[in-house]
């Protein structure tokens, strides 16, 4: 909420202090029965940021430069820049099928790359703009830094394919990337559908034995990875557990998912329903 001073004509809400308990836009006050100007302007800004996150093209050159030292440190070779079959954003938004496949030039480039390299990899990583380029440009470097370090220190050895950046891509495009690069597992980092309060949320999808045509049932997902959401260390911890189990059991998707279901969410602090007199801890 902006700190604009609310002069006359605005009726403030006595319960505004409850905002410490939720990111929901409660206690906004009212002008007549309508939204006060300050709250209106806050909303407009958040919506503008979320829309920009969808429509702003991913700055692939900047991302590649960001990732270069990491690729070098882990011997990943040159980062590959590819494109889906959706030529532009309006097409991308209306044709999910086109965003799931690489265009011909891109597929050829990955084939060439695979034939010039080793016989295969344990893991390919596709960095996909999805619905939020901001999620990719802000989270990719810190997340991958933590992930590659964790894999390096893992008891098993992980050979990682060259990083692949996909523009106008959907989650399933990672399967084609993994298949063409001869990877046993593919990991997709994708910009998630932006919320008003979270325009920068990264999604992680993992598939064992990736190939074109798989559905969501074959994938495992970790959502809301960002500084103000699931933080990088926790996301890497969850992901490496999944990666290791997937590799051991040679599968991914629903069968893994059942085992990794979260139990009842319990807040860090004891949450209370203050609407009831006996401060019920239900």
């Amino acid at each position: 909420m902006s700190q604009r001073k609310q002069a006359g004509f605005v009726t403030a809400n006595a319960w505004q202090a409850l905002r410490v308990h939720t990111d929901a836009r409660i206690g906004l006050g009212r002008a007549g029965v309508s939204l006060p100007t300050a709250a209106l302007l806050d909303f407009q800004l958040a919506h503008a940021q979320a829309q920009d996150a969808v429509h702003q093209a991913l700055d692939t050159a900047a991302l590649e430069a960001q990732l270069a030292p990491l690729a070098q440190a882990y011997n990943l070779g040159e980062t590959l820049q590819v494109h889906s079959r959706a030529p532009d954003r309006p097409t991308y938004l209306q044709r999910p099928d086109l965003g799931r496949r690489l265009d011909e030039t891109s597929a050829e480039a990955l084939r060439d790359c695979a034939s010039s390299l080793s016989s295969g990899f344990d893991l390919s990583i596709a960095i996909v703009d999805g619905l939020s380029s901001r999620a990719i440009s802000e989270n990719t470097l810190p997340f991958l830094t933590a992930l590659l370090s964790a894999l390096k220190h893992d008891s098993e050895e992980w050979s990682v394919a060259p990083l692949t950046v996909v523009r106008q891509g959907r989650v399933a495009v990672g399967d084609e990337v993994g298949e063409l690069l001869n990877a046993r597992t593919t990991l997709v980092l994708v910009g998630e559908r932006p919320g008003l309060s979270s325009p920068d949320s990264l999604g992680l999808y993992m598939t064992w034995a990736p190939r074109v045509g798989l559905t969501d049932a074959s994938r495992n997902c970790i959502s809301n990875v960002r500084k103000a959401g699931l933080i990088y260390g926790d996301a890497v911890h969850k992901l490496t557990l999944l990666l290791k189990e997937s590799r051991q059991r040679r599968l991914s998707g629903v069968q893994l998912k059942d085992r990794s279901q979260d139990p009842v969410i319990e807040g860090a602090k004891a949450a209370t329903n203050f609407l009831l007199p006996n401060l019920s801890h239900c």
Partner: protein
Amino acid sequence: MVADPHPTRPARSAYRYVLGTRTYGFRDLADVMAKATPERSGDRLAGVAAESAEERAVAQRVLADVPLQQFLQDLLIPYEQDEVTRLIIDDHDPVAFAPISHLTVGDFRNWLLSDDASIERLIALRPGITPEMAAAVCKLMRNQDLILVAQKCHVSSAFRNTLGLPGHLSTRLQPNHPTDDVTGIAASILDGLLYGNGDAVIGINPATDNLAQAIKLMKMMDGVIQEYGIPTQSCVLTHVTNTLEAMEKGAPVDLVFQSIGGTEATNSSFGFNLATLAEAQDAALSLKRGTVGNNVMYFETGQGSSLSANAHHGLDQQTCETRAYAVARKFSPLLVNTVVGFIGPEYLFNGKEIIRAGLEDHFCAKLLGLPMGCDICYTNHAQADQNDMDNLLTLLGVAGCTFIMGIPGSDDIMLNYQTTSFHDALYARRALGLRPAPEFGHWLTRMQIFQDAGRFTPNAGMPPSFAGSLARALQGDMQ
């Protein structure tokens, strides 16, 4: 020039139209329906949309000449293949249908708009109208037609209050929280109640499908409703099988929720069938928790869900959506709402398409006799904004929409989309003179939440009955 652009189509199809030198042929009734549908991205994605504006206008002319009787013979999804088709056909009432059985789709539009179509006649007609007939006439209607006829379709339902009375608009208080934090949810409930929202239901979309979590939220809301004597009902919008289990465990379930679609395959992809819903309705009725009525089901729908599940049988999305209303009306729901803009721009691209779909869904559901509300909403990747939602809210308010959502500041921090706010509901009340459910309205005055019920003005101070709760919350923060 080749006259027929689609020579592979059967030349003998009954659905043909000669326009000047050009002959338009349509594969079958489903093809006519799809191509007559006002433009939207989902039908293009499915490959069923008209290929030109002219083809769409021609398809509408062909559709206008189709006799309503035809929809009882020419089944869009075969009877043997689909239990929703069987439900539609088996429950069709020929006696109720008789007054319109001689009409074409085009005649039906004229009749609906005529003064012959009175409130009482429209009620009597309901069991004689199939979803396909409603969908078909809808495709020929302009937005103002959809509004004018929906106004004449009076549908009310009841549980702890009475919803859908003329001149009334109700709200679902939607206090979602990304981690189901009880204090956070309580804060949003308080905010909503003090803005006069929540008469349709206090309904939470839980952050997980975990059963224990759902039961915890059911108990939490039941406690609040009892403590303040609120004439409303609660619902945790979890899967129907979860709610069945919760009832077996003795949880305080007011309403059973389920997302439904218009084909059997859509519903199996959602993990239920008609028998599941019947079982859940029986279980909820046996709890006898309603005080003024026994409508215990809450359904959500939305155009595009069948295509999204690859279960649309080549039908357009508006026809699939309307078939879902046959499923809904079988179980006498308290509430049904179309979550119109949630599905995203690959199904409804922009504000214009969302507004049209919202009006279509509301009209068709009301014509078929459902207490229809609308989640007037959009996602951030759709070409839509608050102004589009203001337009749809105003149009639906005029049309007599049963209920809308109410959420703090329009921002659902759990589902990451925007819907109508607590403030928006007050706007609609003031602009259109729409009151909350009568029992709830009296409660708002009694609790001093509204200081001027006539102008829907909330109390400028803290209503005394809630002052203690706020003090407890703030005291808790101090500790």
